Structure formats: structure tokens, C-alpha cells
């Protein structure tokens, strides 16, 4: 294929819109930052969209520009992997509301100043609508597969519900069709931590070069606990002390687990915008696919010709297996072709990002069965 500026790593496109949002507002223009790997084949039938999680980004299989770390899903995406640029045309876009180049609260509004809290509240469906704009920009008639874990899985389900004629198969990993009270509760702790930081300033901190890092770090710490399992934490840290022989009878990070969480919090603020964290967690909390369909999840998939593959992990208490099972039951009730397996892992919700050979085998088999 001749060089086409739409394709490749570190791409961005600004589309005129307007994008009509669930909240009743519109967004225009809409900027989408994305990466593509591999080439669209002659009949444009090998395109795979990867949807990222809450704090993820488009750098699914290439170095992160801020942290210098390798892509977040190199175990799944890359040469010889189940999702392979040698065979597939792979797209991953930064979600609407995020801060790695797509339109979000840190973007400039019409008056030239950052939107901050003037950015409209968005939903998972709005994120998918933005991805649809990108799809048209790229000239992809239908995704051969849409794949995602956690919040990425919510987008996959939303694609299936909104645009079943534009997607042939769906892979939903460690995800859910709705946010539970407990999910919302943890997110609310994170949001309150950010908003309680005096440096948040009602969201208008961009000029100051002094963002609410402490609040955002606490939000990340609380959330990070939900990504791990109790057994995993015990195995990794137990009650071991951090670089000391005995307790200090003070409030330093005496325990290794404290030190680890603080590190998670501090390193997060270097790569993420606090306002984006507010907006994206809100979008997740609003997510309830059944609600959009009269309270019956099966209605979201009625008549669907798509193939579905769901995977959960036995130690994931953020989106436990029963949430995947509820989706599977809805798919069965709708007569859709569904596969589902609960895999065993000690690592809790984060398992989908870690080394999971069985997950790779399932994804590979499922994609190949679809001719990919």
C-alpha cells in the first residue's frame, strides 16, 4: 500500500463533528488520537479495534511517549501474538475525555482556554460514537473484531449494542454490562479525593502548572487496590516492612504495601490528568447497557449475528465472573453465538494485562475461527 497519512503510529485527526452526546450537548470539533499497526487488506476485512481501559491509552503496542514504557498490551498485540500486525489491521484510539491527545477536559475550547469542567459529561456510548467517526475516517466498513478489557470491554459491548452491523465479533475481557454500587462507590472515593485537593480549584488548574497531584494519587491508590486480589497482595507484600527492621511508630510508609501504593499513586500523576479521571470514571458509573434497553440486557443483543467471546478471572472482585455470566445469559437468551470461560489467576482484575497464556490461546482460537 502507498503511504497514507491516516495510518501508522502516533496519528491524530480532528473531525468537524458535531458529535451529539448522551448528555444532550454536542462536541465540535472532535480530535481523536490513535495508532494503527499492520495494513488493511484488499477487501478491508481484517480490521481489529482495541478499546483501552480507564487509564489506558492508544499506545497498545508501542512505547508510551511520557513514561517510555512498552505498550500496555504487548502480550496480546504484536508479531506472533493473537492480534498480529502481520495479519491484522489494528486500531487503538485514545477515548473521548482522556488526556493523551483525544478531546477531553484539558483540550482547548472555542475560546482557546482549556475546557476543564466545561467539557460535557460523556458516556461509554459517546466514546464509541467518537470511535465510529474514526472508523469512517479510516475507511473501515466493519470491524472484524472489537476487543477490550475492563472499560474497554464496556466499549466492546456498547459497539455490539449500537452498531451490530459494523462489527463481526466481540471479545470482552474482565468486564461488565453495568457498574455496580460498589464500583460506583470506589470511583466516588477517587473523585472526592481529587476534588478535595485545594489544588483542584474547581478544575481550573491548567494555567497554574500545579495540578491536584495529591488528590489524583490518592484516587489511583484506592482504585489500584481494586485491581488486585487480596491473596495477590498478601503474597506480594504480606505484612513485610519497607526497608526497615521495625515499625517506626509514625506515619511513614512502614509497610511494603504502603510504599507500593504510594509509588503507584505518584507515578500515575505524571501521565494522567485529574479532570480526565473525573470524566472517565463518571462515564463508567453511568454505564448500564440494560437500562438503555428497557431493563432487559438481552434486548441489547436481539437478532445479533455477531460472535462473542467473554473471559473473566476467578480472583477479579472488581468485575467478578457473575457479571460476565449475566452478559452470557443475555446473549444466550438473544440466541447470539457466545463463548465464555472463567480463567484462573492469582492477580485479580489486572490479570488480563499480565502473562496469561490461556487467555492468549482463547483469543487466538476465537479470532482464527472467525477467519482472522
Amino acid at each position: 500500500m502507498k503511504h497514507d497519512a491516516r495510518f501508522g503510529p502516533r496519528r491524530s485527526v480532528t473531525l468537524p463533528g458535531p458529535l451529539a452526546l448522551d448528555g444532550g450537548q454536542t462536541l465540535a470539533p472532535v480530535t481523536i488520537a490513535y495508532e494503527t499497526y499492520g495494513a488493511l487488506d484488499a477487501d478491508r476485512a481484517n480490521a481489529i479495534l482495541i478499546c483501552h481501559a480507564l487509564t489506558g491509552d492508544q499506545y497498545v503496542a508501542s512505547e508510551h511517549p511520557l513514561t517510555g514504557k512498552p505498550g500496555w498490551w504487548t502480550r496480546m498485540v504484536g508479531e506472533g501474538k493473537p492480534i498480529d500486525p502481520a495479519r491484522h489491521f489494528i486500531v487503538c484510539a485514545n477515548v473521548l475525555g482522556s488526556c493523551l491527545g483525544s478531546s477531553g477536559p484539558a483540550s482547548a475550547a472555542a475560546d482557546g482556554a482549556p475546557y476543564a469542567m466545561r467539557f460535557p459529561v460523556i458516556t461509554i456510548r459517546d466514546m464509541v460514537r467518537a470511535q465510529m467517526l474514526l472508523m469512517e475516517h479510516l475507511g473501515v466498513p466493519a470491524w472484524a473484531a472489537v476487543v477490550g478489557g475492563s472499560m474497554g470491554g464496556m466499549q466492546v459491548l456498547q459497539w455490539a449494542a449500537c452498531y451490530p452491523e459494523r462489527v463481526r465479533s466481540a471479545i470482552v475481557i474482565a468486564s461488565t454490562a453495568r457498574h455496580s454500587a460498589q464500583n460506583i462507590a470506589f470511583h466516588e472515593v477517587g473523585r472526592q479525593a481529587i476534588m478535595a485537593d485545594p489544588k483542584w480549584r474547581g478544575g481550573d488548574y491548567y494555567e497554574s502548572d500545579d495540578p491536584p497531584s495529591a488528590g489524583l494519587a490518592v484516587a489511583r491508590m484506592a482504585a489500584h487496590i481494586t485491581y488486585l486480589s487480596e491473596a495477590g497482595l498478601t503474597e506480594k507484600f504480606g505484612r513485610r516492612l519497607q526497608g526497615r527492621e521495625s515499625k517506626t511508630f509514625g506515619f511513614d510508609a512502614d509497610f511494603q504495601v504502603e510504599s507500593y501504593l504510594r509509588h503507584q499513586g505518584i507515578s500515575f500523576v505524571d501521565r494522567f490528568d485529574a479532570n480526565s479521571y473525573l470524566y472517565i470514571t463518571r462515564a463508567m458509573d453511568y454505564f448500564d447497557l440494560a437500562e438503555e434497553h428497557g431493563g432487559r440486557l438481552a434486548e441489547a443483543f436481539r437478532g445479533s449475528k455477531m460472535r462473542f467471546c467473554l473471559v473473566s478471572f476467578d480472583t477479579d472482585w472488581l468485575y467478578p465472573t457473575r457479571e460476565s455470566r449475566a452478559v452470557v445469559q443475555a446473549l444466550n437468551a438473544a440466541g447470539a453465538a457466545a463463548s465464555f470461560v472463567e480463567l484462573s489467576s492469582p492477580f485479580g482484575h489486572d490479570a488480563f494485562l499480565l502473562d496469561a497464556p490461556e487467555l492468549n490461546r482463547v483469543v487466538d482460537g476465537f479470532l482464527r475461527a472467525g477467519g482472522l
Partner: protein
Amino acid sequence: MSLRPDLAIIADHVAPGSRVLDVGCGDGALMAALRDRARVDARGIEIDAANVAAAVARGLSVVQGDADVDLAGYPTQAFDYAILSQTLQTTRAPDKVLDELLRIGARAFVSFPNFAHWRVRLSLLWGGRMPVTRTLPIAWYATPNIHHVTIDDFRAFLKEHGIVTEGAWFLAGDRLTSAAAANFRAEHAVFLIRRG
């Protein structure tokens, strides 16, 4: 790859192009054969995660689930056939599972090891021990078979519940044996049934 004899019988009698739910599908051997030979739209349920992963990796639509619990989520008469092979005797409530099978499928294939086979009888009669045979190879404390059933038990059950038998095959080893002496001579039975 050759199918287990009871699965081969089922595979030979499923109408091409039909919709099939295989309950307790294992690694999907029967489903794959049905798909490849007869363009059957096959779905499966399997309790063991490793089996499910193997089945999905061969491109089959299989969900991890339990026949005792998860059949309730399937719509009524959604399949031409529901298949329960070598699984009936492992369920907690075989009567309810059979009822669900006949609700979900227009017809059901049910296969099970016959507990009245002469080897089993001999083992109990002369040995006074729970049988460990070719078809029942696992000792009493470890066997998943918690509801042993004989061919005559099953026939009586069908009659009591007004269930119609459309076909029945009886296996001694991998050879068919006659219906008349089946309760004594057959190690396995395969029934094709529907609601009356």
C-alpha cells in the same frame, strides 16, 4: 480423529444444518464433527475451564456453565436438538435437567452408561463391591457419577413422564446390541427423545 461410539451415533443422526446445544460438551469433539460434517450451528456448555478453553480455541461457541444451573437462561425451543452425552448421571437433579433439555430443544439426545450391565451386576453380586469397569472406571469415592441409572430405569422414567422415544441405540464396547437384552448386555445407551 474418531469419535467416541455414543457420539458417533449422535453425529450420524443429527439433521444437517440444524441448531444444536451440546450440554457437557467436553473439549467440543462432537460439536466440531457436527460443524465440519453437517454444517450444524452448534453451541456448547461445559463445566471444566480447561475444556472450555480448548473448545473455544478450536473455534466453537462454548460457555462455561453447569447443566444443573445454567440451562434456565436458554430460551424455549431455541434448538433443534439438545444433547446430553455421558452427563446425565453426573447431574444433581437429572429429572429437572431432562425437563430443561426438552424445553430448550425440540428433541434431545441423551447417552449414559448402563448400571445394569452384566459386569456391573457381577461386581455387586459376587464381589459385593461398587463396580469399577471399562465404562465406570473411577472408584466410588471419586466418581462424578452420582445418579447411576439403568436402561430400564430410563425407559420407565420416559414412560412416567410421557416422553416419546424416537430412537434408541445400545452399545456393547463399540458394537451395537439389540434392544431386547439391552438392560443386561449394553454398556452404553443413546436415546433420542421428545415431549409427547
